[in-house]
C-alpha cells in the first residue's frame, strides 16, 4: 500500500479534511445546550418568546438544518410568491442582469476610451486628473445622485455597477495599449498597415491580456458592489434577499445567500480565467 499520491490528489484530500473539520466545529458549536439556557434565561422573557429564548443557541442553524434549507431552496429556485418571496434563482438572475448590464456598458466606454488614452500622450495627460479623482470614490457614494437624476431604483443600481467597473478596465486598457512593444508597431508601420487594421490586428491582440485582467478585476468589484447596492435600492436581487432575510431573522437563509454569492462570484471569475488563457501569448 505504498501508492504515491499526486499533488492535486493530496490537495483534494486536504480540502475535504478541512471541510469535515469545519462541519465538525459548526456541529459542536450549534449543539443545543438546554441546561445552560434554562439557568440563564429570565423566565418572563422566556414566556414572552414562547420558548424561542431558551433555544437561542439554535437560532444559528445546525449543519443539518442548513443542508435541509439548501436542498429545499435549490430544488425549486424559480418560484415566485409575490415581492417578498421569490426563489433564489430569480433573485440571482436579477443581480446578474444588473451586473452584466452595468459591466458591458462600462466595457463599451472604457475599452475605446482606454485605447485613445493609451495611444495619445495628450489624451493621457488631459484625462489623468479626472481618472485619479474619480477612481477612489466608493461606487455607493454615487447612489443618491443616481437616484435623484435617473429616478429609477434598478437603473441606479446598474449605474453604480457601471461606475465601479469603469476604472479598472479603463486603466488596464490604457496601460496595455501604451505598452505594446515598439517592434510590433514598427513592423506595422513598415508594412503601411492602416490605423484600423493596426488597432484590431496588432494593438488589440498585444494588449488583450492586460485588458482582460482589467475586465476580470472589474467583474469582481461589480459582484461585490451589487450586494450592497441592492440592499440600498431594495425590491429584487440577491442583496435585497440578504437584507430581507436579516429582517426576517432567518440566519439560515442569510447563510445560504452568502454561499450562493460566493458560488456565482467564483463562476464569473473562472469565466474570465478561461478567456484570459485564450488571449494569452508567450513571447
Amino acid at each position, binding site marked *: 500500500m505504498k501508492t504515491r499520491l499526486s499533488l492535486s490528489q493530496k490537495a483534494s484530500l486536504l480540502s475535504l479534511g478541512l471541510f469535515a473539520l469545519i462541519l465538525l466545529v459548526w456541529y459542536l458549536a450549534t449543539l443545543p445546550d438546554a441546561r445552560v439556557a434554562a439557568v440563564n434565561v429570565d423566565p418572563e422573557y422566556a414566556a414572552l418568546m414562547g420558548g424561542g429564548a431558551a433555544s437561542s443557541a439554535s437560532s444559528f442553524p445546525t449543519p443539518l438544518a442548513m443542508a435541509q434549507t439548501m436542498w429545499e431552496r435549490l430544488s425549486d429556485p424559480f418560484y415566485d410568491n409575490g415581492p417578498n418571496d421569490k426563489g433564489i434563482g430569480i433573485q440571482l438572475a436579477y443581480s446578474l442582469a444588473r451586473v452584466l448590464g452595468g459591466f458591458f456598458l462600462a466595457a463599451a466606454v472604457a475599452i475605446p476610451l482606454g485605447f485613445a488614452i493609451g495611444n495619445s500622450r495628450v489624451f493621457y495627460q488631459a484625462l489623468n486628473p479626472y481618472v485619479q479623482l474619480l477612481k477612489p470614490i466608493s461606487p455607493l457614494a454615487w447612489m443618491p445622485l443616481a437616484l435623484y437624476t435617473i429616478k429609477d431604483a434598478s437603473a441606479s443600481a446598474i449605474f453604480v455597477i457601471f461606475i465601479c467597473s469603469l476604472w479598472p478596465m479603463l486603466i488596464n486598457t490604457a496601460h496595455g495599449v501604451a505598452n505594446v512593444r515598439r517592434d510590433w508597431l514598427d513592423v506595422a508601420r*513598415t*508594412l*503601411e498597415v492602416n490605423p484600423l487594421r493596426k488597432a484590431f490586428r496588432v494593438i488589440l491582440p*498585444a494588449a488583450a491580456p492586460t485588458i482582460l485582467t482589467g475586465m476580470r478585476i472589474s467583474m469582481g468589484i461589480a459582484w461585490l458592489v451589487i450586494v450592497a447596492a441592492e440592499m440600498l435600492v431594495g425590491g429584487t436581487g440577491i442583496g435585497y434577499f440578504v437584507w430581507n432575510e436579516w429582517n426576517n431573522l432567518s440566519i439560515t437563509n442569510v447563510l445560504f445567500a452568502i454561499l450562493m454569492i460566493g458560488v456565482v462570484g467564483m463562476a464569473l471569475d473562472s469565466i474570465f480565467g478561461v478567456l484570459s488563457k485564450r488571449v494569452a501569448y508567450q*513571447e
Partner: protein
Amino acid sequence: MSAIPPFLQVENLARAYPSPTGGEAITVFDHVNFHIHKGEFICVTGHSGCGKSTILNILAGLDAATTGNVFMDGREVAGPSLDRGVIFQSHALMPWLSVLENVSFAVKSRWASWNKQKVRDHAMRYIELVGLMGAEHKKPSQLSGGMKQRVGIARAFSIEPKMLLMDEPFGALDALTRGVIQDELLKICAETQQTVFMITHDVDEAILLSDKIMLMSNGPHARIAEIVNNGLPRPRERSAIHKQPHYYPIRNHLVDFLVSRSKQFGALRDAPDAPSSPTVFDPADLLVPEPPVVHTPPVGKPHIHLVNA
C-alpha cells in the same frame, strides 16, 4: 557609370539629439553621403554609438534626419513604405500569430485585394524558401532563435520590397546557426537580385555577403570614413572564401579600421563639422600579387572571429 542615377541616394545626412543635460545638441553623425545601386549588397560596420542603426531607421522611414535627404528610385523617402522591407534584430514577430499568419499579415498588407488562398500560397512560398516547411503552424515561442529570424527573413522577402534593410539580423544567434542562415541569405539574394543595406558587427559576415563595406568612424560627428570594395567572386562559399587571394587583405583592412583607425575621425578631428569624403579601399589595386593559398588555418581552430564593439 554616372549615366544611370543610383537607386538609393543619401545626401548630407545628419542626426542630432537634444543633450540630456540641456546643453548643446549632440550630433551623432553628419555629412553622411553614399549611394547604392540596384542589386547591390551593402554592409555597414562601426563601433556602437556611431549611428548605424539610426541611419537604417532613417532609410526605413521610422526615424527622421535632422538635416539631409534620402532619395530612393528618384523619390524622397518620407515615412515607412512597403518598398523597403525591414528585418529587425529582435525578429519582431507577433507572438500571438503562427509562422504562416505572421508572413500572411505582411503579404495581406502588401496586396490587400488578394483572396485568402492567394495570400496563403504566396506566404508558403517564402516559408519554404527559408526552409521552414512543416513549422508554419507553430507559434514563435515554439521556435528556436534561428528559426524565428528565418520567419523574419521570410516576412521581409514576402512583400517583395525594392530594398531590404537589416539591422544586425544575426547578432543574437550562435555562430553555427548564423553560418547556416548566412548561406541561405546569400542564396536567396542571388536568386532575387535583392538590393540590401545591412548593419553588422561581424567582419567575416560582411566579407561573405557584401559588394561594398562602409566603415563608420566613432561618434559623435561620426561619418562614413572608408568604403571597401569587396570584389570577391560570386557565388561565394563560406568554406572556401578565405582561400581567395583578396580575402585576408580585406579582412585585415577591416579589422585594422575597427581596432585603430576608427578613433582617428569623429570628434577628435581639428574641425569636427568639416565635410570629408570617404577613402576607397579596393583590394584589386594592391600591387603585391598574392602568394598562392598560404593561409590554411590550423585544424580545430575556428576561423570565424567576432569583432564586437
